[in-house]
């Protein structure tokens, strides 16, 4: 019995039946997480569990507002958990690239999918729940040595009350390939999103991955991202959490091959009574890997941000260079910040450091700006913007960058009032 009962009882479509596998059965024996679990001790899940969500959406009007002109011909639309090709435009994909539902995927995509390694979430409650209640699987497949110039936009949109959607996106970047994938979430209503994204970055491939979560403020968003990073490859990711009343983002990046690099940046800008929780694990299993993580949180009103970042260095993974910085800005007396940067190191020849700061704006910086004629509110807004914008500055898609910067500006302006 669980709150997604209806979705878990549905007869699965043929192409996802395999994926569901034993998840429904296993789920019976896995307990729902509670506040007694270390990973969930700061989040109230009981209200979510006490609700019941429907898995059958009514016909609704969708108007996606996050548009990326650079990717308009590489757009995959997922509405209420299902791939909708009529709303997608995949006319300008490079040769060797497949984007779409697993239903239409060629056999080599299936083969690549089967070969992916186990993820640390495989036995975790919400991942099992995602599989048990699966609505669709989307794939992004980039053939060996293929370069996909235009970014691929996977747009999730949900409309409806008490509606759940459990989707899975599998991104496979084969040896030596190169691509950028942008995932965006938006919608209307008190729905529940349970997306899982799996990435395979094979040898010498480069994958840039941006995830913009801008769900309705009434909604709940519980996401998982598991990335398998192979030898000599680069995985560059950025997760942005702006929406949802409760958002939880679990990220697990595993360096399987030596000489790989990953960036796991994040930004959460929240207000009202929002809760934004990010748990990340970077597992270094091979030597000579490098990882870089910058996670920033801006908490306004009575919001609550949580960051839990783990860096693991396994015993034989020598010469690891791992850097992690978490900075938090509290804008209101009622806001709350929890952070727990963790290092677990089992090799001796490593360079690992982490830092965490929580505070308000620097009075000296404010004074500097005020002494140059800016009003107090203006100066505050400028500094807050600069704090958040640092994370965004690396985005190479101008329209997306602009969209995000505008959103941050609006949030700050509202906070000023």
């Amino acid at each position, binding site marked *: 019995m669980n709150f997604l009962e209806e979705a878990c009882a549905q007869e699965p479509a043929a192409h996802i039946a395999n994926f569901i596998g034993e998840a429904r059965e296993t789920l019976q024996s896995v307990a729902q997480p509670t506040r007694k679990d270390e990973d969930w001790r700061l989040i109230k899940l009981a209200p979510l569990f006490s609700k019941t969500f429907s898995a059958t959406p009514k016909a609704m009007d969708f108007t996606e507002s996050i548009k990326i002109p650079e990717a308009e011909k590489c757009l995959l639309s997922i509405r209420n958990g299902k791939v909708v090709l009529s709303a997608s435009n995949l006319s300008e994909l490079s040769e060797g690239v497949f984007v779409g539902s697993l239903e239409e995927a060629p056999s080599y995509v299936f083969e690549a999918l089967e070969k992916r390694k186990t993820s640390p979430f495989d036995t975790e409650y919400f991942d099992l729940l995602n599989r048990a209640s699966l609505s669709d699987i989307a794939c992004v497949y980039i053939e060996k040595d293929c370069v996909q110039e235009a970014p691929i936009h996977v747009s999730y949109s949900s409309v409806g009350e008490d509606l759940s959607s459990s989707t899975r996106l599998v991104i496979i970047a084969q040896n030596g390939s190169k691509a950028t994938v942008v995932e965006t979430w938006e919608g209307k209503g008190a729905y529940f999103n349970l997306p899982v994204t799996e990435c395979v970055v094979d040898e010498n491939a480069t994958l840039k991955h941006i995830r913009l979560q801008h769900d309705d403020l009434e909604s709940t968003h519980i996401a998982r991202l598991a990335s398998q990073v192979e030898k000599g490859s680069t995985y560059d990711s950025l997760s942005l959490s702006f929406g949802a009343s409760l958002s939880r983002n679990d990220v697990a990046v595993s360096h399987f091959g030596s000489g790989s690099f990953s960036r796991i940046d994040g930004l959460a800008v929240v207000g009202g009574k929002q809760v934004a929780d990010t748990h990340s694990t970077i597992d270094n299993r091979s030597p000579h890997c490098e990882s870089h993580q910058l996670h920033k949180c801006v908490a306004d009103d009575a919001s609550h941000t949580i960051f839990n970042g783990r860096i693991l260095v396994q015993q034989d993974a*020598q010469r690891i260079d791992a850097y992690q910085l978490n900075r938090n800005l509290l804008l209101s007396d009622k806001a709350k910040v*929890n952070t727990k940067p963790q*290092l677990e190191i*089992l090799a001796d020849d*490593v*360079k690992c450091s982490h*830092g965490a*700061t*929580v*505070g308000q704006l620097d009075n000296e910086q404010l004074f500097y700006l005020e002494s140059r004629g800016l009003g107090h509110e203006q100066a505050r807004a400028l500094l807050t913007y600069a704090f958040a914008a640092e994370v965004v500055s690396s985005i190479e898609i101008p329209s997306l960058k602009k969209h995000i910067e505008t959103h941050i500006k609006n949030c700050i302006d509202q906070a000023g009032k």
Partner: protein
Amino acid sequence: MNETIEQEPDDISTLINQPYKYGFVSDIEADVFPPGLDEGVVRALSAKKEEPEWMLEYRLKAYKHWLTLEEPEWANVDYEKPDFNDISYYSAPKMKPKIDSLDEVDPAILEVYAKLGIPLDEQKMLQNVAVDAVFDSVSVATTFRKKLHEAGVIFCSFSEAVKDYPEYIKKYLGTVVPHTDNFYAALNAAVFSDGTFVLIPEGVQCPMDLSTYFRINTPKSGQFERTLIVAEKGAKVSYLEGCTAPQFDENQLHAAVVELIAFEDADIKYSTVQNWYAGDENGKGGIFNFVTKRGICEGARSKISWTQVETGSAITWKYPSCILKGDDSIGEFYSVALTNHRQQADTGTKMVHIGKNTKSTIISKGISAGKSQNSYRGLVKMAKSATNARNYSECDSMLIGDKCGAHTFPYIEVGNTTAQVEHEATTSRIGEDQIFYFLSRGIDEEDAISMIINGFCKDVFRELPMEFAVEAQKLLGIKLEGSVG
């Protein structure tokens, strides 16, 4: 350079073979309870200590609560849980019913302390330190009582305090670490055997450093001592604690509780050099050190400072904490934790900021060698009321050898916009270039390592009282001698 690095394993084995200096067993006739724990044992213990009714009630309340608790498992340590029915909860050297002066202490015990280098004999004492020696379950001697008495300072064993100063014990016992606090605190509250009570009256600066020396001697016995230090308004005290135990193949349990209370403008400095027996190179034997230490800065401008050098114990599970309740109060935590062989340490601190303008500093240095695991676990909490509170934390780990582990688990919780928290942590090993620098200046490898490690720990050693700083440096030297190539 590469050659020297490759030599490492040999040198580590040299290190591993360093004997535990304090591992001797002294044959002293002891009055020991048979192993086991039930309500009868708690009652018998209380009766043995001739305790008043209220004390027994407190113990029974704690015991009943303990029965409802489960042993915690969240710490990053792996061990076989002790069988609480296989432990003797009381072991005391047989002696005359009451001791009036040192002359009446069993000379065999005095000899043990002499062997440990703890001068109990006041006549010969050069150091200006008053010592309370706790042997197994009871306090055997307290020195310099007269001089302290003149200053108005109460420094005595816990059992004496229960009899002589019940009003203080009733007032303060369990106020900082309640018997419901955690599994081991509850167990301690039920069966604590002895410990130290210190009260520094208003405006008094304690004329000398106070010190307790703990020694577990009887096999299969647990040591559950309780320390309570109260510094009244404007009082100041520096307190030292040292621990050793003989070598046994079986694990012994040490579950102590320390409570510190600092009122307005008071200043308590608590230093520990912990060198319990750590077990042999295969992890056999050694002490389980499960300790709850907490201080409260009750009054404005008060200060509590914890300094610890943790080198012993098979398992360490210890988080000396400060509750910064008074406005402008200060909490400090300085720690060096060294693990070797198969030792496991999960240690750190909690700084709970409640008052305005409260400040805390955390400096933690972890050194892991051999096959040991060393974790820092800390909490910095800024309550809503903690306006302008500040915290600075620095946790550095050093790894010696490729089979050990270093872990950091800092928890930061902030609920006030004006509070500022900074946390930094690094993990590294001794750099080849650093060693090369020393070698090129004619300093041999071993001295170079010792200098680098002492430099690594300097921030903490500086905080230790003089005698302890010397002891701590020597201890690290012994433990790490020849450890790195």
